[in-house]
């Protein structure tokens, strides 16, 4: 198993760096496909964006922590923020994209995307912030 840790200031300028580091680290897994790497890059961008926004709302100067763990069967990424805690149960679903009313909402695609693209997606809110854990399975089919 290998583990990569990263800490970044909670600023949007660091998003591209996060995508680059995490996708480079995950790309060291010889079994991960380019499509799954794209999925992970996008999901990490979404979760880190949410973390940065959580820090902005909480006016927190703390850093955001990320880890990327690789083993023989998985790539697991965790993003930890120090915001006020995000409750996924309070998400208000938007109309489907085929509904003209959907054009009223520019936001709200990120969490459904993460859920759809990742094999596992967990949100763990607490009083100290939120941890998002995302996993993709990389083991080749037998």
């Amino acid at each position: 198993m290998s583990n990569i840790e990263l800490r970044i200031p909670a600023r949007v300028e660091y998003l591209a760096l996060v995508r680059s580091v995490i996708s480079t680290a995950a790309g060291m897994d010889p079994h991960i496909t380019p499509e799954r790497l794209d999925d992970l890059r996008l999901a990490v961008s979404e979760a880190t964006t949410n973390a940065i926004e959580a820090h902005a709302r909480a006016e927190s100067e703390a850093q955001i922590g990320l880890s990327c763990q690789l083993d023989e069967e998985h790539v697991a990424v965790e993003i930890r923020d120090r915001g006020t805690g995000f409750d996924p149960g309070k998400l208000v679903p938007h109309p489907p994209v085929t509904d003209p009313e959907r054009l009223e909402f520019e936001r709200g695609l990120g969490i459904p995307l993460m859920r759809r693209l990742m094999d596992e997606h967990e949100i763990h809110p607490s009083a100290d912030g939120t941890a998002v854990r995302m996993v993709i399975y990389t083991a080749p089919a037998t």
Partner: protein
Amino acid sequence: MIQPSFSYSEDGAWSILRVHGELDIATAPLLRQRVIAIVSSGVMRLVLDLTDVDFIDSTGLGVLIGALKRFRTNDGQLRLVMDKESSRWRLFETTGLDTIFEVYESVEDAVTDTSS
């Protein structure tokens, strides 16, 4: 952060905005500003060429949704250009946005299609 760059041109009744770079929460607002300025200048038909956009996340998609709304509100047309073998197109399919946007594989196709 790498700022996106834009190049603007015209082809008959269509204006074309070519975007280079990545569209996320750091950069997509610049595209929103461009689109608002273009709509405000009276342009009714815009092709947004995303061929050279390397990455789009949900914030970027949100800006595109907002752009589509602006054009439809003004009885205008917005068409997108992107490689349909790319991860960006796969993102459109995953989110269902492929069903509400007119997407073409080349600017030439976008400006010459008279089907709508």
